[in-house]
C-alpha cells in the first residue's frame, strides 16, 4: 500500500466511524426521549416523596396499626389499601379491591426487606423497613391474582405468597358501606 492509499483508507474509516457514532447517539437520545415522554405523558413516574416510619412501633400506633390495615373506600370514591410485610406473610394475607377504580397501595415492612408483586399487573414495589412505599394501581377485570414477596427475606421467603381479589365495584361499595376495613382473609 502506498502512503497515499493508507491516508485515503484512514479517511474512509474515520468517516464510516463517525456515521456509526452519530447513529448510536441518535438511538440513545431517542430512547431517553421515549422514556421521558412515557413518564411525563402517561404519568408513570416513581414515588415522588420519601416517607419514613419506625418499624418497631407499627403495631402500637399510627397508620399501620392492625385495625387500619386492609382496604377502605375514601369519600372521593378512590380506594386506599394499607398492608404490612413481615417474615413470612403479608397482613392482610388477602387484599380485597374493586375493579375499575383508582387504588393507592401504601405498605411497609415490619422487619427485613420484602417486595410486593401482583402477578399479571405492573404493580411491583419494594418494602424497605423504615420507609413507606406508595404505589397507584387499577384493575380492569375482576378476578384473583397471586401476590408473592419478590425479595429474599430469609429462609421462609418461598412461602410468602399473598393474594389479591378484585371484585365488582358495586359489590365492593356495598360491602364498604359500614366504613370499616375490608380484606378477603379467610374467604
Amino acid at each position, binding site marked *: 500500500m502506498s502512503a497515499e492509499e*493508507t491516508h485515503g*483508507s*484512514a479517511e474512509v*474509516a474515520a468517516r*464510516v*466511524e463517525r456515521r*456509526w*457514532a452519530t447513529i*448510536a447517539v441518535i*438511538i*440513545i437520545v431517542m*430512547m*431517553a426521549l421515549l*422514556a*421521558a415522554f412515557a*413518564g411525563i405523558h*402517561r404519568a*408513570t*413516574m*416513581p*414515588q*415522588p*416523596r*420519601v416517607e*419514613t416510619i419506625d*418499624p418497631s412501633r407499627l403495631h402500637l400506633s399510627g397508620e399501620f396499626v392492625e385495625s387500619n390495615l386492609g382496604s377502605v373506600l375514601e369519600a372521593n370514591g378512590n380506594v386506599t389499601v394499607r398492608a404490612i410485610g413481615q*417474615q413470612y406473610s403479608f397482613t392482610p394475607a388477602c387484599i380485597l379491591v374493586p375493579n375499575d377504580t383508582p387504588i393507592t397501595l401504601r405498605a*411497609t415492612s415490619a*422487619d*427485613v*426487606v420484602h417486595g410486593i*408483586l401482583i*402477578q*399479571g*399487573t*405492573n*404493580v*411491583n*414495589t*419494594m*418494602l*424497605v*423497613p*423504615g*420507609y413507606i*412505599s406508595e404505589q397507584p394501581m387499577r384493575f380492569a377485570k375482576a378476578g*384473583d391474582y*397471586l401476590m*408473592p*414477596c*419478590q*425479595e*429474599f*427475606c*430469609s*429462609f*421462609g*421467603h*418461598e412461602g410468602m*405468597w399473598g393474594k389479591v381479589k378484585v371484585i365488582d365495584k358495586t359489590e365492593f361499595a356495598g360491602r364498604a358501606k359500614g366504613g370499616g376495613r375490608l380484606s378477603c382473609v379467610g374467604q
Partner: protein
Amino acid sequence: MLVNRKLILAHFWLAFAVFGIALALGAWQMFIRSPIGIWLSNPELYYRSLTAHGTVMGYVFPTLVAMGFGYAISESALQQRLVGVRWAWAGFWLIVAGSVMAVIPIALGRASVLYTFYPPLIGNVFYYVGVVLVVVGSWIWVALMSVNLRVWRKANPGAPVPLAMFANVAGSYLWAWTAVGAALELLLQIIPVAAGLKSTIDAGLARVFFSWTLHAIVYFWLMPTYIAYYTIVPRAIGGRVYSDSMARISFILFLVVAMPIGMHHTFADPQVGAGFKFIHSAFTALVALPTLLTVFTICASVEIAARLRGGRGMFGWIRALPWDNPMMLALAFSFVMLGFGGAGGLINMSYQLDASIHNTQWITGHFHLIFGGAIVIMYFAIAYDLWPHLTGRELIDLRLIRTQLWLWFVGMIVTTFPWHWVGILGMPRRMAYFDFGDPAIAPQALSVTLSAIGGFILLASGIMFIVILARGMRAPQADAGPYQFALAVHQPATVPVALNTHGLWVALMIALTLTNYGYPILTLALSEGTSVPAVYVGAQ
C-alpha cells in the same frame, strides 16, 4: 514476554476451581427448585448454596480472571517484567484467605444473606470480613497495574500506551471506584452490626450504597471480555482492529458512565425520590453507547479478517470467516448473547417497563445471559488463548474446545430464555421451591424444568472446560512464541493525551458519581429515625 507465568496460572486456576464449584451449586439449585427435583426441597440448604454461588460468581471468580489477565497484559503488552511481584502474591493470598473466611460461615448456614447482603438481615461477621479481604486483595492489583503503567511511561515518554494495557488500567480504576460503594456499606454499616457493636441499621441507605457497586461491577466483569474482543479476537482470526481510537473511546466511556447509574436498581424502592431515579435512568441509556460502538468496531474488524481470507460481497464475507477457530466461535456466541441480554437491559433501564419485571426471574435471566453468557464465554476464550503461553504446551483438543463452547452457548440459551418468560408472568426470583400444585403456578412448571436442563448442560460444559485446561498442562511441550495483541489497521504513531491517559476520565467518573449519589446518600445518612433493628440470620 510472560515471565511470571506461575502467578498468572495461580490466579486462573483458583478462578476456574471456584467457578467449577459454584457452577455445580447453581445446577443443583435449579434442579431442586424444578418440578423434577421437588422432593429434595430444603430452603435452608438452598439459600446457603445460593449465597455461595452468588458470592463466588459475583466477587471471586471475575476478580481473579481480571487480575490474572491483567498481569498477563501488563507483561506482554508493555514488554516489561511485572513490577511488584511480591505484592501481587500478597494480593492473591489475601483473596484466598478472604474466600476461605467467607465460605465457612456460608457452609455453616450462618451467612445466608445472598451476595447482595440484604440488610437488615445480618449474617456472621466473618462472611463480610472475608468479602472485604477479597476486595482489598484486588485493590493491590489495581495499584500494581497503575504502577506498572507508570514505570513503562517513564521508559517510553510520550509513546502510545498499548491498547490492551490502556483498557486494562481503565478496568482496574473502574473496579477500584465501584467497589467503594459496597466497601462503605460493609465498613460503616454492616460490619459494626454483625460484630455486635450496633444493633440497628438503615436498610434504605445500605441499598443505595450497594447500588453504587452493583451496576458498575458488571462493567468490571465485562472489561476482560471487551479487551479480548478488541485485542485478541482480530489477531486470532487473522484480522486487524478497525480503529484503535474508537476502542479507547469505548473504554473511556465505560469508565465514565458505568458508575453513576446504579440507582436504576432501586426504581421500586421507597427511599429514593423520583428525580434521582430519572437521572440514573437517563445515564443508563448512555452506557449503551460504548457497547454500540464496540459492536460496530468489532464487526468491522472481523470483516477485515474475512476479506483478507477472500470473502466477497455485502454479506458473503461472513462465510469466509474461520468458523472452526474457537476464538471466532466464542466471539459469535458472545455477541448473540450480548444482543439478547442487552435488549433485556434496555427494558430494565426504563422505569415504566421495569415495573413489570422488577425482581422477577426475568432479572436472573438477564444477568446470566450477560455475565454467565456473553462475558464468561470470552473468559474461556481468553484462557484457551493464553494457556499455551503460560504452560509452554499446545492445546490440541480443538474439536473438544468447540464442543465446549457450543454446549455453553446452548446451555445458556436453554437456561435463560425460560427465565425471561416466567419473569414476564411474574415469577419472583430467589425462591427455594414453588407449589406447582397451585393451578396459577402449574403452567410455569415446564419453563422451570427447561431451565434446570440448561443448568446441567452448562455444568457439563464447565467440566469439559476444566478438563481441557488440565490436559493442556500435560500436553507435549511446544513453544507458542511471544504473546501478542491485535494490531490496528492504522496503528497509531501518536495518540492525543486524552486518549493515552486516564486522569481526566477518572476525575470525571468521580465527579459524576458524587453528583449522582452525593445528595441521596447525604439526605439518607442525615435523616433521623430510619435505622431499624438488625435481624440476625440463624438467631432464634
